């Protein structure tokens, strides 16, 4: 769906050097109008640098950044149709909440009462309607976050840039704000570009995610594709948990890939299950913990696809139990997650276990 949106941000071969350090190594991407787009990657991979380059706070060494079709080369940050929510929120401490939110309107042609209305609306939008007169330094973390949002959105930018906006909040507040941000973005219809190192946050909030490593985009896809079909082992490891089983690619015929998976047996895959490409010979099969299923007494696996092993670790979470199971004939255990249900026994350490597996859930890394 997102591919059909007209692009509002176009990045073409964007490179950035800090002295000798190559921080961005050719970033190319289109970000659609009204899209919730995330830059996800480990700390130091260049997410902030890219965001600041879009905002105009960093000059790029090579490449091109188009905002709404216009080349941003040499355009100062205060002349770009972007606004930013800073990681520290950057709330002006010597101003009230209303003065902070209205700051961007200082140069607008609006009358005083129009400005007051706009500030009131912006505060209402983020649920701070009664806080206008409050001093900025007397706010909690979540409130500062909302002030920063209102202050940036009041200018109705074409693109809102958010640098790890939730990382300073505690877990509970973070989850509340995730939902609020999604709602807010739908409401205002403005393109959001969010920087985060938290894969769960990116999956929950985004229309599309660019996974970055060392200044490069490793994969750009919607959350489901990214989770189900990571195109490299590295992306797979970064997004959620995944088991990797040694395998051999035996051949590719009529659009089917035949592999022999150690500990499980032979499997037939579709080409889409190898987003990183296929090469004959040694490979790895990725399987998420939830796509392996423990079989209880009397249960049989569909198509006879079952394997057995020994329970090596049991981690009980209440709603879920995670098992590490060493499949017979394999060197390392696989992780299996099972939803706990009435009548379903939690296996104990050392017990024998049978697993059912589904070739459709596999990803091939050649």
């Amino acid at each position, binding site marked *: 769906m997102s591919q059909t949106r007209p692009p509002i941000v176009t990045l073409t071969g964007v490179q950035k050097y800090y002295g000798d350090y190559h921080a961005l190594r050719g970033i190319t991407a289109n970000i659609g109008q009204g899209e919730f787009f995330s830059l996800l990657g480990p700390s130091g991979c260049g997410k902030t640098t890219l965001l600041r380059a879009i905002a105009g706070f960093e000059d790029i060494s090579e490449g091109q950044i188009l905002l709404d079709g216009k080349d941003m080369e040499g355009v100062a940050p*205060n002349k770009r149709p972007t*606004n930013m929510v800073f990681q520290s929120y950057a709330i002006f401490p*010597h101003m009230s909440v209303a003065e902070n939110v209205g700051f*961007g309107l200082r140069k607008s042609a609006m009358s005083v009462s129009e400005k007051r209305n706009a500030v009131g609306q912006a505060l209402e939008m983020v649920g701070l309607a009664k806080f206008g007169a409050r001093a900025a*330094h007397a706010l909690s973390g979540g409130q500062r976050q909302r002030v920063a949002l209102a202050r*940036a959105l009041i*200018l109705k930018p074409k693109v809102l840039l958010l640098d790890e906006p939730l990382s300073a909040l505690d877990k509970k507040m973070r989850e509340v704000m995730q939902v609020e941000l999604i709602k807010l973005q739908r409401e205002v219809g403005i393109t959001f570009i969010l920087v985060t190192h938290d894969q769960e946050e990116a999956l929950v909030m985004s229309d599309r995610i660019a996974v970055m490593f060392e200044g490069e985009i490793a994969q750009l896809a919607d959350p489901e594709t990214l989770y189900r079909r990571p195109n490299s082992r590295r992306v797979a490891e970064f997004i959620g948990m995944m088991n990797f089983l040694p395998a051999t690619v035996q051949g590719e015929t009529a659009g089917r890939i035949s592999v022999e998976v150690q500990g499980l047996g032979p499997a037939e895959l579709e080409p889409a299950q190898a987003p990183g490409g296929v090469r004959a010979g040694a490979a790895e099969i990725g399987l998420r913990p939830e796509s392996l299923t423990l079989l209880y007494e009397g249960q049989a696996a569909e198509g006879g696809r079952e394997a057995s092993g020994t329970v090596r670790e049991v981690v009980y979470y209440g709603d879920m139990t995670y098992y590490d199971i060493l499949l017979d004939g394999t060197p390392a255990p696989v992780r299996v997650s099972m939803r706990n249900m009435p009548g379903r026994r939690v296996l104990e350490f050392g017990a024998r276990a049978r697993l059912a597996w589904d070739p459709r859930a596999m990803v091939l890394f050649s």
Partner: protein
Amino acid sequence: MRLNALAIFAVLYLVVLYAPIMLLPMFAFNSGTIIAFPLQGFTLDWFAALLDTPALHEATVNSLIIAVSTAIFSTILGLFAARAATRYGFPGKAGIVGFIMLPLVLPEVIVAISLLIVLMQLGLNSGTWSIIAGHTLICTPFAIAILQGSFSNMDKSLEEAAIDLGETPWSTFRLITLPLVSPGIIASLLICFTISLDEFIIAFFLSGNEPTLPVYLWGQLRFPARLPVVMALGTILVLLSVALLIIAETFRRRGLKRAGLKDTGGFL
């Protein structure tokens, strides 16, 4: 037991430190002309005598000109240096900042003699402006120390946020930077003013025939009859200095509070 020893030490320390200074106002208000106990009676004569001493008025005007100029120059230099030191990285930064801060620990008499030699080599007369130069040299490190605190307390993204919201670099400086560092600027002005006002050695070496207040005071010590007057003048100087430092510290703390920060052990 240990607490008592500590308490006694603290009291002794304070007595040794402040008792001599407490003698100043005692004798300043004492009607006897000789500086000795027992005290004779209460008088304001010595303060009145201050009023009709033209030489003293000249020294006061001199001191004020020097102190005000020093405060302004040191604070402006300190602003540039502190801003550069906290916002930008450049090669040799640590060394340069270290050298700028050096006069803080250099013996003043060395600074004074060096300045005098330079002036003589250049064939220039010493005078008010050379004292201003000397005082600016020793006050700038204080200004930098205070202002560096103000700048480093200030989140760099505040300035970027203002620019992001459409302001120019100049209006950002006016609307964001200046209000947030202004308590530091005021503290710096007041402290540099006080240091310059009280400074003796450089002023003594460079003042020529235009003495500053401390130099005038020193000169008066030769006349035993003038001692009570000196005491009165000293009392005023001490009170003024203490008042200025308290005001400066108040501004510094207000700055921290404004930036929403806790006090991390002050400059004073």
